[in-house]
């Protein structure tokens, strides 16, 4: 059978060499990722246009109108200062929204059964969905950064830090969104976390201000917010300034990414919210 992975023995017992399984898993991973990206591009008016409009408004209102009265922040205009935070905020929100709506939609429409009844291991399913969400996050990030360049000039100080930070941040919130979608039973359940958890954490994560401007204990409380590390690491990557050491930010982000990936894999393996 051309291109197939089935290699039955004479007595009828099937067997699959490791190399065959690896090849099959890579094909499956590519399939889920392609399907996710295709879905995102098919509904581009819902996935790519709204963040562009929202962020343009942020740049106009916060950057131009309010920013002109705020003055400089750590040696940069207020517009320049808020760009990294707004880019990261749009990446986080779009990754989360992408994976929750897509995976919960597949549960709601029951076509998640196509995945469950296939030979794919859990890590392939998870990686495929996360790759799709991260792709949307990065695409939105590029769009928002492009819009920002209409309002101000930017010189990327540390490209490697900027790139790794957005990929890590996007991965973390894609994983969090996947876990949310696994537990969700109704559409309301995927709206609660963005509204009551994600939005407050983002606004309090140093997008619009330096955490050093806060007095004790609010500065210490802010350090418990993981988004603060992402925003500041990305700001360091773009502007070369940040409120937290970049290695501390990497450590926090890696810990979150690994922890959330392990939880998501365990839930998938157990079939929580998916199998009876």
């Amino acid at each position, binding site marked *: 059978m051309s291109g197939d992975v089935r290699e039955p023995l004479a*007595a009828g017992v099937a067997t*699959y060499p490791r190399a065959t399984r690896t*090849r*099959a898993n890579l094909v499956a991973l590519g399939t889920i990722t392609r399907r996710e990206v295709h879905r995102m591009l098919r509904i581009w008016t819902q996935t790519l246009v709204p963040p562009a409009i929202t962020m343009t408004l942020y740049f106009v209102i916060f950057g131009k109108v309010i920013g002109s009265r705020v003055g400089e922040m750590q040696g940069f205009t207020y517009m320049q200062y808020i760009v990294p935070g707004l880019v990261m905020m749009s990446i986080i929100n779009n990754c989360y929204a992408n994976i929750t709506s897509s995976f919960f939609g597949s549960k709601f429409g029951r076509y998640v059964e196509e995945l469950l009844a296939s030979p794919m*291991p859990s890590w392939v399913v998870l990686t495929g969905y996360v790759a799709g969400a991260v792709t949307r996050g990065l695409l939105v990030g590029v769009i928002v950064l492009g819009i920002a360049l209409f309002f101000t000039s930017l010189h990327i100080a540390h490209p490697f830090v900027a790139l790794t930070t957005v990929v890590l941040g996007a991965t973390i919130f894609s994983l969090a969104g996947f876990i949310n979608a696994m537990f969700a039973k109704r559409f309301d359940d995927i709206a609660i976390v963005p509204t009551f958890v994600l939005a407050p954490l983002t606004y309090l994560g140093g997008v619009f201000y330096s955490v050093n401007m806060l007095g004790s204990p609010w500065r210490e409380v802010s350090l418990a917010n993981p988004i603060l590390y992402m925003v500041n690491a990305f700001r360091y990557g773009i502007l070369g300034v940040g409120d937290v050491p970049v290695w501390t930010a990497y450590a926090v982000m890696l810990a979150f990414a690994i922890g959330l990936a392990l939880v998501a894999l365990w839930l998938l393996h157990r079939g929580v919210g998916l199998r*009876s």
Partner: protein
Amino acid sequence: MPADSALSQPASRGPIATPAREVPALEVVDLRKTYASGVQALKGVSLAVAQGDFFALLGPNGAGKSTLIGILSSLVNPTSGDARVFGLSIHADRGGVMRQIGLVPQEINFNQFETPFEICVNVAGFYGIPRVTARVRAEKYLKELRIWDKAHQATRMMSGGMKRRLMIARAMMNEPRLLILDEPTAGVDIEIRRSMWQFITGINAAGTTVILTTHYLEEAEQLCRNIAIIDHGGIVENTSMRHLLSKLDVQSFVLDVTGLDGQLPRLDGVTLTRRDAQTLEAEMPSTHNLNALFAGLTASGITVTSMRTKTNRLEQLFMRLVEHDGIRP
């Protein structure tokens, strides 16, 4: 489905030649499932399906059929017991088992915003089948199931019968050795149903083992060689279709008659019931001579203008099995 279809050859109804070394296509061993609600859906089900068989799994609603199929297709976690597909255990090698199986579920479960072609190619990808091969197979099966003209339209625009056929095409994308059909013809018209039968018998004749659940018992009687009946989470009958049908010792007929004016005649071994002024029902042992029935009716001034069997034979047995916990030889 065209009559000259390459897959139109009907499956042989003869016994299955199984080599001594050959493992069963499916072997279920003491499978149990208790849901979180406390409902015991399966209470120790054991059965075997030989390679190449066309096997009917019948039972009333809530009997445990869908739970059993759900466990085989990895959609339901079993509480205990095991199922082996071509020798591979669902516990030890879930991925290996899934590669053997094609599933046509009872409910429509594909993304209604995707096209049939996308659905088939994507599902093939989930099985690790390269895209080039997947595209060829998608075209082949969508054409064989006569929905190729809708291949690039959103599935939400398709009729119920087309959606059913798409689910069969999708299940064929990994060219499974075991095809499980959970009420595949529910709600489709007779013409489409027959074309689906033709396709499935062709698949079976080509060597694929088929397990069919259906509420159309004439479908099971016509297509399947072996049968298991499940009720209240347990197997109440598991035998060949021929053997099961031979257990039917009573036959019932509906007679269209004239001259049915007075009392019904008393005929030895025959129970007559008046349905209306022109219709009688006659129930008698399967060994009873029909000439004696006609003679008795004629002697009473009743003329039989036409007759037909009251119910499908398998339906009669099925009702007895699920109502009285089984008949035994």
